[in-house]
């Protein structure tokens, strides 16, 4: 998961140590640009493509991880 966390830290311009499941996306400029960055990041780390609408509903990193796990199980 560390490449994923490092990518999130880069996207949100915070230190990687701040990224944990409870990290709030919506408090960190969770806009369309951040969403497409995260779509690409997840594609790179997990080889799954999530859709923007589903991502935009995520509030925390844990929500993202749940969505990734669900997509991988499908």
């Amino acid at each position: 998961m560390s490449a994923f966390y490092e990518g999130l830290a880069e996207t949100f311009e915070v230190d990687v140590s701040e990224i944990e499941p409870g990290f709030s996306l919506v408090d960190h400029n969770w806009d369309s640009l951040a969403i497409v960055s995260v779509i690409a990041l997840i594609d790179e780390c997990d080889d799954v493509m999530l859709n923007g609408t589903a991502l935009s509903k995520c509030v925390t990193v844990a929500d993202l991880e749940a969505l990734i796990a669900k997509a991988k199980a499908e």
Partner: protein
Amino acid sequence: MDDGGAPRPGYSVPGVALRGVVSALPARRVTNEHFKADFSDDDINDVIKMIGVEARHWVAEGQTSSDLCLAATQRLLARLDWAADSIDALIHVSQTPNQRLPATACELHGALGLSPNCQAFDVGLGCSGYVYGLWMASALINAGCRRVLLLAGDSSSRMIDPKDRGTALLFGDAGTASALEASPGAAPIHFVLGTDGAGARNLLVQGGGFRDIAADERRAEGYNPDTLFMDGGAVFTFTLKAVPALIRQTLGRAGASVDEVDALVLHQANRFMLNHIAKKVGVPPERTPINIDRYGNTSSSSLPLVLCSDLGERLTREPMRLMLAGFGVGYSWGGVQMDTTPLGCAETLVL
């Protein structure tokens, strides 16, 4: 499972050579400073971090992409020493024609003084249009044409909504001309082409056509049908899904490996996206030229513009194995793997 011996997607066309490419940019160079009147510094910086555009060239009042294509073609013909009456076909790829009719290709035919036996027609594609143009030129040459001019140009700056952060900073204008010729010994050119019409409304300028647009739901939100609408997230997702597969299919058809490609030339859609695609297919940055920082997304011109701006010197000096991919509006996409012999010219003009 028996697939019935289904062939790999695409086409391989022998006997066609690319002889030269010229790109023309309008003189007006617009840097990101220009947008400070409409957007905050943070807004601009966020977008630039993603798309990577530092400057772009925009047409002047009264200038169209066909003017740029015309100048590029005149230079190309002079450099190659091709007589106007030696051209059998002119293909003009653009989404910014001079008028609804006649086809701008016919005007360009007149301005260039081409032969009455020369066919000339427009193709209304954007980001994928150059690959489609190469495909059509190759098919025409296999059907008997000897010399074909492929003109690709767009002045997208004339369609953008200056208040739309997603598109206002992204696009640049350019016009290009490429010369293709019958060459019996030439290595086959490999094409993969495709379309997904389900994405047609995600990148769209509704105005100027004949479908009734009065009822469009977005008009209530102030959407101007004469400006470009882009659902950036949807287009982005489409691209990440479609383009790595397109590159793999095209190289698979050509029997070429990623490591043998001298340059992966991608439609200059968005710098972040290009880096992601290159990484995903395993081509290092030094073999993935990017010029979106200098010229923005120039729609149908972007692939030939990269050939001139970033690969021109090498293309005129030595043979190259190229993989080109165009993708976007439509949705429409095309991949082409071609081995070039040293070109007679590959240069950029500023008008």
